[in-house]
């Protein structure tokens, strides 16, 4: 009894002391969909968090909760963070969209930042990266390098962000290789290494010699390495452990500058609700080193494509393009506007199969 009383009062004292300090520190919370060690999506968000800590040192305190399921459970986690005094909360997965809006309505003084969504409020900003720009480069390399002309694609959930990536990769693979065919498998998870590896194996067994993934772990890379003679691309993170084969390049998400800027805005009191969508040009999307497994001429073309996207002279969605059902999407020379891209819910002409609802 005495011991527990002692412990309780000690905890209370620490709590009070913590409370006293908390006022001059900006507290930044992060909600992660996978573990910080996934080697992909969540890993890079956590790198952004560490960059915030490094930038502001003692003036900032960061907290994070990992493996938070999308849906109601995330609402509980966010509420707890807000109650614990967070000033700014980053919710880093598409499925946190409605929970973020709900919790934000209850805590008008806390700022929220939701990644990859489209719902905003006075205290909710959205931010995302133009991953589809990187997908164009992947598609180009994939189309050039495939020998079986079958490219496997592991999708997570059928949301615009993922569909955009499939379309962008397909358009650019088709452009350099008219015979190319995409096999798309939906894993219905962001992070489940065993399932991701199974999906990759199935695609490889069905003849794919290029596997693109839009899930978070490095498991498909391991499966491709095991199979041999299959190429992959790092997703969200460099995944350089699997270079030079099977990983021949990667899309790298660089959240650090954005996280630092937004934390600074909260400190300065200049934070406003915004919608940020940056790509290769602004540095939010990086292209990992293209390895020597890629022929030199293909590599040079890919780098030229990257440069033209970065300086804005080329848009990955440039007409003439038709939708899967044959109706017109973009006229010759026309480029897709951000609204169309953000809500993209159709395949472009040539992709087989239906998008799940």
């Amino acid at each position, binding site marked *: 009894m005495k011991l527990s009383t002692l412990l309780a009062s000690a905890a209370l004292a620490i709590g009070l002391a913590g409370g006293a300090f908390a006022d001059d520190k900006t507290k930044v919370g992060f909600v992660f969909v996978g*573990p910080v*060690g996934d080697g992909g999506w969540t890993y890079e968000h956590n790198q952004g968090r560490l960059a915030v800590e490094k930038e502001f040192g003692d003036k900032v305190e960061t907290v994070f909760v990992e*493996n938070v399921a999308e849906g109601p459970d995330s609402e509980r986690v966010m509420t707890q963070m807000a109650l614990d005094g967070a000033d700014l909360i980053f919710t880093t997965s598409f499925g946190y969209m409605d929970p973020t809006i709900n919790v934000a309505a209850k805590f008008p003084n806390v700022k929220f930042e939701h990644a990859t969504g489209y719902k905003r409020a006075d205290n909710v900003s959205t931010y995302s990266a133009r991953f589809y720009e990187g997908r164009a480069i992947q598609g180009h390399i994939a189309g050039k390098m495939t020998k079986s002309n079958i490219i496997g694609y592991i999708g997570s959930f059928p949301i615009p962000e993922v569909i955009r990536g499939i379309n962008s990769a397909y358009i650019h693979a088709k452009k350099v290789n008219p015979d190319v065919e995409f096999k798309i498998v939906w894993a219905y*998870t962001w992070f489940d*290494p065993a399932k991701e590896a*199974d999906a990759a*194996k199935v695609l490889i067994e069905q003849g794919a010699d290029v596997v693109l993934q839009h899930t978070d772990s490095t498991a498909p*890379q391991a499966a491709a390495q095991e199979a041999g003679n299959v190429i992959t691309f790092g997703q969200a993170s460099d995944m350089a*452990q699997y270079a030079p084969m099977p990983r021949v390049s990667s899309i790298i998400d660089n959240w650090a500058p954005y996280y630092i800027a937004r934390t600074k805005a909260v400190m300065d009191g200049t934070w406003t609700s915004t919608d940020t969508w940056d790509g290769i040009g602004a540095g939010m999307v990086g292209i990992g080193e293209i390895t020597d497994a890629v022929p030199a001429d293909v590599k040079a073309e890919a780098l030229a494509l990257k440069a033209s996207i970065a300086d804005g002279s080329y848009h990955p969605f440039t007409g003439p393009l038709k939708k899967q059902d044959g109706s017109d999407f973009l006229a010759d020379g026309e480029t897709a506007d951000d609204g169309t891209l953000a809500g993209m819910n159709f395949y472009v002409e040539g992709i087989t199969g239906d998008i799940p609802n």
Partner: protein
Amino acid sequence: MDLSAINPVLFVAGFLVAATPLIFAALGELVVEKSGVLNLGVEGMMIMGAICGFATAVETGSPMLGFAAAAAGGALLSLLFAFLTQITLANQVASGLALTLFGLGFSALLGQSYVGIKPPRLAEVNFGPLHDIPVLGPVLFSHDIMLYLGIAMVIAVWVMLKFTRAGLILRAVGESHDAAHALGYKVVRIRTLAIMFGGACAGLGGAYISLIRVPQWTEGMTAGVGWIALALVVFASWKPWRLLLGAYLFGGITQLQLNLQGAGVAIPVEYLAMSPYIITILVLVVLSADKSSAPASLGRTFHASS
């Protein structure tokens, strides 16, 4: 749609591999529950097995030593649960959940330097000429030793529970620990051994994921298999053969739906994605229409004085 893209031989071989982690973990939990203990820490013990096995295999270069270490790691973690529930008489549900949380966190800590490493490969068992039989050879005789061990253990557990004195004692402890105690059986000791067996099996299942099915180490890589194993034990009505059937159904349909998606079959993907859960549950529920029920003492705390 192009069904010819699906190679039935590779498909069957694939689902045998996919089902094996589930078989190990669920079989261990079955024995634990038969002894009257509910251990919800399967996921935690699996992930501990996954990292202990992976690290040992990488350091020693021997996958078999890795599996041994995985079993040891899982059993060691389960001892913590045994101590909490059998010695200090803590609540089994809470202790099991705590074990899962602890296992996930501790494995992440242990595994930090093992990210992105390729483990040594476990060779296929050499069946000689059997391997060359068309179709049957690649399906049945081209796997690693652990896959066969999983099936052998299902048989062993079934024989043990049904035909041996040891199995009778284990079941007695699970049905009525007071009666078993009155007969002079050491309830706590028997349950502790069962819990350790469950831990070792879960560890093997976890290592099968990190060493063979994926093969790599990633934090949290079991991603819920432990919970599916727990559900499977209940739906299989605590019977080893049904458990094997359930695991193959689940693994098989999971593999099949990925294959069908790849082949572009015109079934809505949503239905394909939920089919493993629904079909496995349906089949096992229909099978359990007989009067099989949970061990009567399941989840109840035992103390010799009470």
